[in-house]
């Protein structure tokens, strides 16, 4: 076999120092990290985040591209590793490998109206695209964000969304399924409802979706009803990546690996992947 140059650290993380750690909701903790070198990620990519001795899990990158080795993650407490991460404080370290995955290419969105639909924690990865798009209003068209979660207590990035709502090029619709008797300044309902009332220029609009699997079917039906073709809908999928380099098999959807060809797909690409959204 012909020898080849390989990175010996392919499965070994770099340790990032935690600059800031705070609870955003009862379930989600926000981390601002400093890596020893640049991460050079695209929006929609993910990292493998770990605590040595405890484990490693795929976490979406939640900030836009930057070149100073800093990154932001929003971690839901969903298992033994993420529970341990919720105990980490500023000054502690977290292991990071990556970035991995296809991600979004900003150039594809140039000049287009964009509809973002986020369900729950789905807003965390979408923020990595929303922020660079909003940062250059002249480069993109009208921006709409529809973000839904269960109750006001589950809402993430509230202040961010309120700030985005104040920008002239952006419209933000924040929803909850149920106010749960808590104060709430948004709307009540499902993320599908506002789509019916949107002004959509079908030829020049792209939709970007991220949320739980159950959300996609209904949002896509609603967008299709408004005439948006499948080629103009992007979906950011969740799978249980273990390696990030297309080898471990866990994130395979039919013939594609979510960590390499995905996790961002055009919906038209998913039509040949029956296991993608179920």
């Amino acid at each position: 076999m012909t020898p080849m140059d390989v990175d010996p650290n392919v499965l070994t993380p770099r340790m990032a120092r935690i600059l800031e750690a705070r609870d955003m909701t009862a379930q989600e903790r926000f981390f601002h990290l400093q890596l020893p070198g640049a991460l050079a990620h695209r929006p929609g990519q993910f990292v493998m985040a770990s605590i040595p001795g405890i484990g490693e899990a795929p976490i979406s990158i939640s900030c836009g591209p930057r070149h100073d080795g800093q990154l932001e993650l929003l971690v839901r407490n969903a298992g033994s590793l993420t529970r341990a991460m919720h105990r980490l404080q500023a000054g502690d370290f977290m292991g990071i490998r990556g970035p991995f995955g296809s991600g979004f290419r900003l150039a594809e969105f140039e000049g287009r109206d964009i509809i973002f639909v986020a369900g729950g924690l789905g807003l965390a990865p979408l923020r990595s695209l929303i922020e660079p798009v909003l940062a250059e209003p002249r480069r993109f068209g009208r921006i709409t964000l529809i973000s839904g979660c269960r109750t006001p207590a589950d809402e993430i990035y509230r202040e961010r969304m309120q700030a985005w709502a104040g920008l002239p090029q952006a419209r933000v619709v924040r929803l909850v399924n149920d106010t749960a008797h808590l104060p709430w300044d948004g709307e009540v309902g499902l993320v599908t409802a506002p789509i019916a009332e949107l002004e959509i220029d079908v030829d020049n609009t792209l939709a970007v979706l991220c949320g739980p699997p159950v959300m996609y079917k209904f949002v896509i039906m609603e967008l299709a009803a408004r005439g948006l073709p499948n080629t103009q809908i992007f979906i950011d999928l969740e799978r249980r990546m273990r390696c990030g380099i297309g080898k471990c098999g866990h994130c395979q959807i039919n013939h594609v690996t979510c960590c390499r060809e995905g996790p961002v797909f055009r919906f038209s690409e998913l039509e040949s992947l029956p296991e993608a959204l179920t």
Partner: protein
Amino acid sequence: MRGFLATRTAVLDWLRTLALQEDVFFPQPMGENSFSFDKVRKHSTLAFEDFDAAPAEKPFRASACVQPPGKKLSPNDEQIFRFSKDENGQYQLTPTLDARKRTLAGVRPCDLKAIHLMDRVNRDGIPDAHYLSRRQNTTIIAHDCLQPCDEHCFCEATGSLRWRQGADIFLTPQPEAKLSIEALTERGERLLDAAGFPPCDDIEKHRALAEEKRAKPFGRHFDAPLQQVIDTVGSSWASPVWDKHAERCFACGTCNLVCPTCYCFDLKDDFSIDDPHSGQRTRSWDGCLLEEFAVVAGGHNFRPQLAARQRHRIKRKLAWLPARFGDGSFCVGCGRCGHQCTVHIDIFDIANDLLAATEAEP
């Protein structure tokens, strides 16, 4: 290409000598009818089958070791890195790359093709340093098959019976208890130069002799040519055939465990028992037939049905990975999954049933 002709005994003695310098692995009897691909030790029982061996002759049908030789290149629970944490909370992480010299000897063509496919997988995209470090330090001595190893074999049908690529040295059974020996790489040439076997000028003639002796047809054959099998498996999605074979499956993952081209894995962390500030991450084999394989955080399972997981495995072997790598079937026809399965679920039968089901469609 340099060739040699030596007795089987001389070659085995040479392997024993080699085993004094580095780890040499060779098929060895395990129980009555099984073989294990194990390290050659002082008192190991080593043998090659006879040129004139009858198809059913025991005990030496050593080709189908329960575990394929390629698994030595990505062992279960291999260490990926070690770590330690100092009093300031700073970590020190060191990747573990195994660069020890080793030899896999008596590797059959099906398993050789499987190793070639694993080379492709591990070099693809972002390469896997841990596998490649081991692979680059491994010598492969392959051995041709003149008879199918058992009734499960279908290597000719999957295009791996005549596979030679990836071997450093290739052995072919010859009459009078001999083996013809060919160097296929520079590494192989260096080894054979030092071995001192009697040279052979007409190696082609000896290969032809073996080809003539080879069983025809060799092992089981699909009911259609391989490309048609690949096309049929590729286009079958909602077929009742998947349910038929899944009905008796226990989802135990044995098929994954013994398959020479199953490479899915999981990563696990441990703290050291002696020192809670240090530990390791290891990689262990995983299997797509196991229920929790496609579960994500929060508990959603993307392949909860057994039939869907079985379909996933079969389509990886006979459709998806062949399409991705363009190197033919990822099922190499070794027959292990069907042989080891408690309820005799055999990828060969599934493929044939899919062919029949497709034929029956209007």
